[in-house]
């Protein structure tokens, strides 16, 4: 019980300092704990936030277009054939915030989801999967002819 209390104080301390220094805003500090990776601005940082270096795996089947005419609506989907898959994340490498979406699958749910994302420019779509505590990844390039991140 004491450890938890220590950790709480420690975390508040560190984040509090960062807030007072103006490095991160309060909203980001609050979000940091619950949503790892979503506030990171580089692909490498986002992958690190998910838990380090994933192994490449062809058992993750990507359903992403080769060419997307409109970057604002790019249909992406993926299916993990790795047994014990519990989580799946979609990362768009060159987006301002690379981590687009994360899904958690309770037992009994197919490890196969589809959604639509925005892409700023031609880049790799990487799907990171967590199975039995280990990370796997697969990626594929989608060419974007019209960006979807405004500007």
């Amino acid at each position, binding site marked *: 019980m004491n450890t938890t209390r220590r950790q709480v104080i420690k975390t508040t301390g560190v984040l509090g300092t960062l807030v007072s220094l103006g490095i991160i805003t309060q909203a980001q500090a609050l979000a940091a704990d619950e949503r790892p990776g979503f506030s990171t601005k580089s692909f490498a940082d986002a992958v690190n936030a998910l838990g380090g270096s994933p192994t490449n795996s062809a058992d993750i089947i990507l359903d992403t277009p080769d060419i997307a005419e409109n970057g604002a609506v790019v249909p992406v989907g993926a299916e993990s054939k790795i047994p014990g898959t519990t989580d799946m994340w979609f990362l768009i490498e060159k987006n301002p915030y690379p981590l687009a979406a994360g899904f958690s699958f309770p037992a009994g749910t197919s490890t196969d*989801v589809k*959604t639509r994302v925005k892409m700023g420019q031609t880049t790799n779509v990487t799907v990171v999967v967590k199975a039995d505590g280990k990370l796997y990844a697969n990626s594929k390039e989608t060419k974007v002819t019209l960006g979807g991140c405004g500007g």
Partner: protein
Amino acid sequence: MGKPMRIRAKADNGVTTVRALMAHVMEGGQRKDSSGKVIPAHHITDITASHNGKVVLSAQWGSAVSQNPFLAFSFKGGAAGDKVALTWKDNKGDSRTDEVTIA
């Protein structure tokens, strides 16, 4: 409270497929308005889907999910007449829950 979601849930051979369209602006916080000011981010952050009260999918979304988001997934179990509920929460504290009956 946003506009209602459009959800379809279909049971086939013991597997229920759910497809949903949510109405949301999903503003990424990157765009600028005509006076050059950045439009603040406003997007869905969390999604939970449940079948008869049991969670079948949870998701965390960033700002890169498209406007009026689409989501498709499937789970084992579920029969015609069962309820599937979908809840979203956004970064401004708004949320919405919609429920459909499996066809």
